[in-house]
């Protein structure tokens, strides 16, 4: 059995047939995960220094030299690296007195932060499968982002207490702006809201729980939904990017709802983390510093918005990017600022960021060419081995060698 690192579900029931170095057939991978496996042979990055192709060793030495000379380096990425590589990365950040941040800084960091601090209760996906009878997918489209979420854990499978599966034992609601593919399969329980309408919906939900008339168009539907939510033995809320962006800076709204629901029954929250080990990085950095992201080691441990990738892209004098493509994923105006900074990029593939980097160090694809461990979206640790031999070093190896040379 292999583990898929295509998303934060870390599916560990993947069967792979291998002939030499190539993968001939796979079982149980979704389309997205299969895409990751197919990327093994597509458009791999090559070692480069200043636009010139070179050896991996030379690229590593140059990276170490640049880090040594930098005054305000930023280390960014991390959500597609193993826990072992992330641990080295945090060590490197300390040594280089760098800013370290990960992709949670521009997506679901605020929610993951509350979960890791235990400000809101959470549980494992196995708990959801066994006991989660009432689900709310909120601002997410699991069919597209985590294709096996509903089939492996949340909605369709039989669980210990839920032997009859989705038809009789589970109820799932979807709250979203867009009539997504998931909305098609949860059509009867789809609550469509306008952009930014999440906070108003929370107010209305709280009003119903307080026995008041909610200020919404379809009062009956909302009251009926709240009655179902109240009857849950174990409810689970799965917030996605939609909710994360809509409630940014106001995450206490989500907490207010979760607290209120927990007055009468049990409700947990699992954030729909995208990349396979973002949760792992957040947990590691939290364990070491008390913060999940946006940390500066320039003078002890400091934390704050000025150490976010959005700010540091404008203020750093060197950026080391690990397993991420910020030139592609940041707003163009910020990516433009980052493009002016000398960049060192570790990535298995050619990306927009590698194209603009001074130093490119190709790495092994974790889960396929490199082993290690990672934390699933619910914090459960999953270990995996390499399934094919690779000519590329893992992130962990590259970071260790940079640490030695620095």
């Amino acid at each position: 059995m292999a583990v898929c690192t295509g998303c934060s579900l870390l599916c560990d029931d993947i069967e792979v047939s291998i002939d030499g170095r190539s993968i001939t057939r796979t079982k149980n991978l979704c389309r997205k995960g299969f895409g990751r496996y197919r990327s093994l042979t597509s458009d791999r990055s090559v070692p480069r220094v200043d636009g010139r192709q070179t050896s991996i060793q030379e690229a590593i030495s140059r990276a170490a030299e640049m880090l040594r000379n930098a005054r305000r380096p930023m280390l960014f990425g991390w959500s597609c690296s193993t826990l072992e590589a992330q641990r080295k990365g945090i060590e490197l950040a300390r040594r280089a007195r760098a800013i370290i941040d990960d992709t949670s800084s521009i997506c679901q960091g605020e929610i993951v932060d509350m979960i890791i601090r235990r400000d809101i209760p959470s549980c494992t996906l196995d708990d959801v499968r066994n006991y989660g009878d009432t689900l709310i997918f909120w601002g997410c489209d699991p069919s597209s982002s985590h294709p096996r979420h509903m089939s492996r854990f949340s909605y369709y499978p039989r669980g210990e207490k839920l032997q009859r599966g989705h038809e009789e034992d589970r109820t799932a609601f979807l709250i979203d702006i867009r009539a997504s593919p998931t909305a098609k399969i949860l059509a009867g329980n789809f609550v469509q809201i306008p952009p930014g309408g999440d906070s108003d919906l929370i107010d209305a939900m709280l009003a119903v729980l307080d026995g008041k008339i909610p200020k919404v168009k379809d009062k009956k539907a909302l009251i009926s939904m709240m009655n179902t939510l109240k009857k849950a033995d174990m409810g689970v809320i799965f917030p996605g990017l939609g909710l994360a962006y809509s409630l940014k800076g106001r995450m206490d709204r989500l907490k207010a709802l979760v607290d209120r629901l927990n007055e009468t029954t049990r409700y947990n929250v699992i954030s729909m983390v995208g990349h396979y080990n973002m949760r792992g990085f957040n947990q590691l950095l939290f364990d070491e510093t008390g913060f999940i992201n946006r940390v500066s080691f320039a003078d002890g441990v400091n934390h704050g918005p000025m150490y976010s990738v959005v700010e540091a892209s404008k203020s750093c004098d060197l950026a080391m990017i690990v397993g991420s493509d910020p030139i592609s994923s940041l707003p163009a105006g910020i990516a433009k600022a980052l493009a002016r900074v000398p960049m060192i990029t570790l990535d298995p593939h050619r990306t927009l960021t590698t194209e603009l980097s001074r130093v490119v160090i190709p790495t092994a694809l974790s889960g396929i060419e490199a082993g290690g461990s990672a934390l699933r979206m619910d914090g459960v640790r999953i270990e995996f081995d390499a399934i094919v031999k690779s000519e590329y070093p893992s992130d962990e190896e590259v970071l260790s060698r940079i640490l030695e040379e620095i």
Partner: protein
Amino acid sequence: MRVTIVTFRDIFQSEAQEIDRFSEEYRKMSAVVFLDKSDAVKAGVKEGANVLVESDNGRVVVVARISENAHPGLAFMPNSPWSNRLVPAKTDDTRIPSYKSISAEISATEDKVPTVEDLLREMVS
């Protein structure tokens, strides 16, 4: 025609992104905007035609698709370097960019859809 752009994830686009960000397939899946039928009529934009999307932050030409279901006033774009041209670089105190709620003007255009290389060139210009 003014709309609110909301970005989203599409599995076929994610698949293309995993495999090759420089492929024509990835561009085809990414450089699109899904318009409401009546909005498209108002903007004079037809299915499959090129459309200029312009926000306070930037502009980008993508291919128009007409949605089956109605969503007047909203337009959906897969999250990609194309949609990121429109996302404001200025953020609030949270320093989290507003990827999912961007006010933009849409209009028919004869201009071409940029390639990834075009986007990169602009990035360093």
